[in-house]
C-alpha cells in the first residue's frame, strides 16, 4: 500500500497555535496546538486521531491556512513543497494563500449537509469553487467537471440539482468532487464520513482512497474513529491535548502501539465475534487552558510514575518511522492481540 516516495510535501516544525482571548479584562490562553513537528510525504495518506477538544481541528485549520482570530500561530512553520513552489501557510499573505487554495491545497469539510449552498445548484457551486483556479474555457471547464463527476460515480444530472435533492452519500461525494476537481497535490479531510451510514461510509472512504491514488496526491484526514484509520491511513498520528503523542505506520499503531493512549484507543474498539470485556478509559481530556504538568496524559495513564508528573516526555524515535512521547514506552503492551477471530465473513 505504502508505495510512497520519500519526498516530503509538508513539513510542520514545532508549530504552536493558541487561542488568545480577553474576556472582561482577563487574558486566557488556550494552547490548542502546542509544539507539533511532523511531515507528510508525497502520495501518502496520513490519519490524525484524537478526541474532541484535543486540538486536532485547530491543527488542521492551520494546515489548511484557515486561521482566524482568536486562533493565532505563535511560533513554528508549516511548509508545503508544491510543484508550483514552496509556501509557509502559517506566515503567508492572503494573496499567496489564494494562489494555492483549491489548486494545490484543498479541503474536504465536515458535514456535507451544511457545506453546500442550499439555494445554489451544484453546477453553480462547482463554478464558484473551481472556475478561477482552473482557468479553463467554459466548454473545457464543463467537460472537466463532468469527467470528474463520472469518476465519483455521479451522473452529470447532479449539476442541475439542488443539494436537498441528493442523498447524504451523494452530497458527500459532491463535496469530495469540489475538493478534488482541480487535482490538488494535497487534500485535507476533516471527519469526512462521521455523519454517514456504514454502507455509505465505506463507499465514500473507498472513493477518497481511489481518487488519492489516481492523482497521487497526499491526504491528511482527521477522525476520532480508529477503524477508519485502520483502513485508510498509511501512517497514523495521535494528538492528545494539543501534542502529537505517537506517530507510526498504521499496522504498528494497531498491533504494537508504543503509547498507553494509543494502546487504549485500539483496545477499546469492539469487534464482531468478540465479546470479552472492553476497558474504558476513565477521566476526561484535560482543559487546554490549564493543562497538567509533565506528560499531559498522566492523570489517566495506567503506567504513570513520578517522572511523568514532572517532566514532559519528548517525541522520540522508537523504530523506523515510529515516534512516541512516553517515558515508559518500553512497558506499553498491546491490550489486544491481532489474532482474535473475526467471525465468519459471509
Amino acid at each position, binding site marked *: 500500500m505504502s508505495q510512497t516516495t520519500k519526498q516530503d510535501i509538508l513539513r510542520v516544525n514545532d508549530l504552536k497555535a493558541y487561542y488568545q482571548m480577553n474576556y472582561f479584562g482577563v487574558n486566557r490562553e488556550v494552547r490548542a496546538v502546542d509544539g507539533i513537528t511532523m511531515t507528510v510525504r508525497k502520495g501518502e495518506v496520513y490519519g490524525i486521531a484524537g478526541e*474532541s477538544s484535543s486540538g486536532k481541528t485547530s491543527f488542521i485549520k492551520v494546515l489548511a491556512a484557515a486561521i482566524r482570530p482568536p486562533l493565532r500561530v505563535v511560533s513554528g512553520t508549516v511548509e508545503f513543497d508544491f510543484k508550483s513552489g514552496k509556501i509557509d501557510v502559517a506566515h503567508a499573505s492572503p494573496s499567496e494563500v489564494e494562489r494555492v487554495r483549491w489548486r494545490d491545497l484543498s479541503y474536504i469539510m465536515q458535514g456535507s449537509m451544511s457545506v453546500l449552498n442550499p439555494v445554489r445548484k451544484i453546477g453553480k457551486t462547482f463554478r464558484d469553487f473551481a472556475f478561477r483556479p482552473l482557468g479553463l474555457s467554459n466548454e473545457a471547464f464543463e467537460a472537466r467537471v463532468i469527467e470528474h463527476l463520472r469518476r465519483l460515480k455521479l451522473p452529470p444530472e447532479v449539476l442541475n440539482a439542488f443539494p436537498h435533492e441528493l442523498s447524504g452519500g451523494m452530497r458527500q461525494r459532491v463535496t469530495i468532487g469540489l475538493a478534488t476537481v482541480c487535482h490538488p497535490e494535497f487534500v485535507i479531510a476533516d471527519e469526512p464520513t462521521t455523519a454517514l451510514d*456504514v454502507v455509505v461510509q465505506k463507499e465514500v472512504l473507498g472513493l477518497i482512497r481511489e481518487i488519492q491514488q489516481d492523482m497521487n496526491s497526499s491526504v491528511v484526514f482527521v477522525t476520532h474513529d480508529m477503524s477508519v484509520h485502520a483502513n485508510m491511513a498509511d501512517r497514523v498520528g495521535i494528538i492528545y491535548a494539543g501534542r502529537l503523542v505517537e506517530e507510526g505506520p498504521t499496522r504498528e499503531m494497531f498491533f504494537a502501539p508504543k503509547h498507553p493512549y494509543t494502546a487504549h484507543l*485500539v483496545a477499546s474498539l469492539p469487534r464482531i465475534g468478540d465479546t470479552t470485556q*472492553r476497558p*474504558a*478509559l476513565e477521566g*476526561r481530556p484535560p482543559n487546554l487552558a490549564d493543562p497538567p504538568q509533565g506528560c499531559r496524559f498522566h492523570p489517566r495513564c495506567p503506567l504513570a510514575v513520578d517522572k511523568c508528573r514532572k517532566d514532559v516526555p519528548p517525541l522520540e524515535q522508537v523504530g523506523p518511522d515510529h515516534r512516541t512521547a512516553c517515558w515508559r514506552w518500553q512497558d506499553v503492551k498491546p491490550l489486544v492481540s491481532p489474532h482474535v477471530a473475526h467471525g465468519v465473513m459471509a
Partner: protein
Amino acid sequence: MTTLLEVRNVNKRFTMGGLLGRRVINAVQDANLTLSSDKPEIFTIIGESGSGKTTLARMILGLELPTSGEISFAGKTVSHRVGRQERLDFMAKVQPVFQNPFEAFNPLKRVDRYLESTARRFLRLKSRDDLDGAMDGALQKVGLSLAEVRGRYPHEMSGGQLQRAAIARALIPNPPLLVADEPVSMVDASLRMSIVNLLKSLRDDLGVSVIYITHDLATAYYISNRLIIMQRGRIVEMGDARTVLDNPEHPYSRLLKASVLSTEDAGAGKLATDPEMVELANELVKRPGRLVDRPDGRMVMSYDRA
C-alpha cells in the same frame, strides 16, 4: 412469562406534501417484537438512517401513535392521548436517553436541576434530603456522584460524563425499561466504551431492560442479547445477537456486516464493497416478503419469487 413490552403488527405511515405530489412514506411496516419482564435484556434495533428505527422507538415511548397495530406496555396500550396521571405513570416506567447529550440538556440550566425535577415529578419527593438522596443514588449507579454534578452546567462536563448524567436522570424513577437512541454516536471513542459498559451493567446488576438503537454493529454484538435489523421500515432479520451477527442470512444484514470497517487488516487499505451486494439489498426493498422462522431460532425475511 410476563410481557413487559409488546409491539404487535405496528405500522406507521407519514404523508408528505399537500394536494399535489402527495407522497406516503411507510416508516415502519408490520413490526412485531416482545420483551419479557422476567429476564432483563438489551434489545438492539439496527438500521441506517431512514430505516424507521427512531420512529419505532418514538412509538414505544408513546411520542408517536402507530397508524395501525398496537403497542402495549405491561398490559396497557401505549398512547400519549391519556390522562395526565396515567401518562406520568407510564413515563416513570419507560425512560428515554437521547443521542446528543449537549442538545438534550439546556445549556443555560444546571444539570442537577434536571435530575431534581425528575425526582420531584416521578418520585413525589419534596424535602431537600430526599431529593439529594435520590439524585445521588441514581448518579452513583452510573459512576458519578452528586458532589461532582451539583451546580455544573452542561458545558462544564465532558460528553461522556454528560451522557452518563442523562442516563442517571432516566434511572431516577427506577424504570424497568430504558429506550436509548444512539446513545454513543456523539461520544468520543475513548469514552464510548464507558457508556456501553454502563448499559451492560445496568442490565446485569440493576435488572433494567434496554432498547438500544444503533447503526454500529460492533457495539451491538458486544452488549445485546437479541436484535432486529431494519431496512426501510421493515424488519428483515431478527434473533439472538450472536447468531445473527456471526452469520447473517439476509442479504442486507450481510451487506451491513461487510461494511463494518475491520481493524484486523489495519494498514492494508481494504475498502472495496461488492456492488452486487448493494444492488441485491436495494432491490429487495421493493419486493413483498414475510418473516420466516429458521431452525436456529432467528427470523429472516423471505421473498416471493418474482
